[in-house]
């Protein structure tokens, strides 16, 4: 009797309560990204101030472009006095890898409206992809939209906040290196890679992609290396998997 009473009172507003829990869970999952984004965003903001960009433009770039490595490269190009077109083309090449990430997540976005898909894509970064590609594989059913967007908005806010802090208060904050904050994102990538490597073939493909990407970087292919290595390794993985399954059944 008591238990049914309790159930009745707690399920007064089931939708709202679980929605809040989903949002809280999304914010929580974004925490490592927040820890990583604030210092990197900060570094970008400091660079932006150094190359003479206004506070408005620095924050605008973090809101609209929202891509760490491309923004840092753009700041470097600005410092070198590059032309606008050079910066835009470089940004395009550096960020082209998101196309693969977007394609890989696409089948999991079926329950979203076009507007939600458009918003989701706007906040697709290496780090949010890393988290979502793990979350969307969850066998317990599709990930809640509230959780997905809470995670994305939290990470985006951290990036914008870090950039703003960097461009306005570059002298206020000491170096983050002593606390190891600059390792938050690499550590997160390690954890997510381990969680997403389900087979020996995937392990080999992952290692191959990483080594190829490093090799290409050393060979001077420094803006195409990630996307080239990913395409080659994933294609090889698909080919080998197909051949092996065919061999097993025939």
């Amino acid at each position: 009797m008591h238990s049914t009473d309790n159930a009745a009172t707690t399920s007064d507003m089931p939708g709202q309560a679980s929605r809040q829990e989903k949002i809280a869970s999304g914010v929580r999952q974004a925490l490592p990204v927040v820890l990583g984004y604030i210092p990197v965003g900060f570094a970008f903001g400091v660079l932006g101030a150094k190359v003479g960009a206004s506070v408005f433009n620095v924050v605008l770039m973090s809101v609209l472009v929202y891509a760490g490595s491309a923004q840092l490269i753009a700041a470097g190009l600005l410092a070198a006095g590059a032309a606008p077109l050079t910066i835009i083309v470089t940004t395009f090449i550096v960020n082209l890898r998101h196309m693969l990430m977007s394609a890989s997540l696409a089948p999991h976005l079926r329950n979203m409206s076009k507007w939600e898909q458009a918003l989701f894509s706007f906040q697709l970064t290496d780090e949010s992809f890393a988290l979502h590609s793990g979350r969307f594989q969850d066998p317990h059913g599709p990930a809640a939209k509230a959780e997905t967007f809470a995670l994305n908005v939290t990470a985006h806010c951290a990036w914008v906040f870090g950039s703003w802090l960097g461009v306005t208060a570059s002298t206020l904050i000491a170096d983050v290196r002593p606390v190891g904050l600059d390792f938050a994102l690499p550590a997160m990538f390690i954890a997510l890679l381990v969680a997403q490597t389900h087979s020996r073939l995937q392990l080999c493909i992952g290692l191959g992609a990483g080594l190829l990407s490093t090799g290409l970087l050393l060979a001077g292919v420094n803006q195409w290396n990630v996307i080239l290595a990913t395409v080659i390794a994933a294609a090889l993985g698909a080919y080998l998997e197909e051949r092996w399954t065919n061999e097993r059944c025939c």
Partner: protein
Amino acid sequence: MDQRTLLLTILGMALVTYIPRALPALTLSSRSLPGPVRRFLSFVPVAVLSALLLPSLLAPNAQLDFSGSNIFLWVSLILLPICIKTRSFFGTVAMGMGLVALARWLFGV
């Protein structure tokens, strides 16, 4: 570059960043993809995450660095078996940051 030109450059950057991010999600989500494409995409997460991570560990300044001062690499090698054993997401991140801080404090690198 003056602030107005910079503003236009930022808008251009935003556009060329957004299109590759949104196009596949908007066009591929509603159709079922052929088997080989699905297979290819199933390898993308592991491949792209590793292609991003490994160069930053092995060649942080675009040069192979196996010296003792490449803390990220050595901490990662310690972290990997711990992560495989514990499977803890937050534990791995916290321990990684802790080990990096500790190594810097101990060795002053």
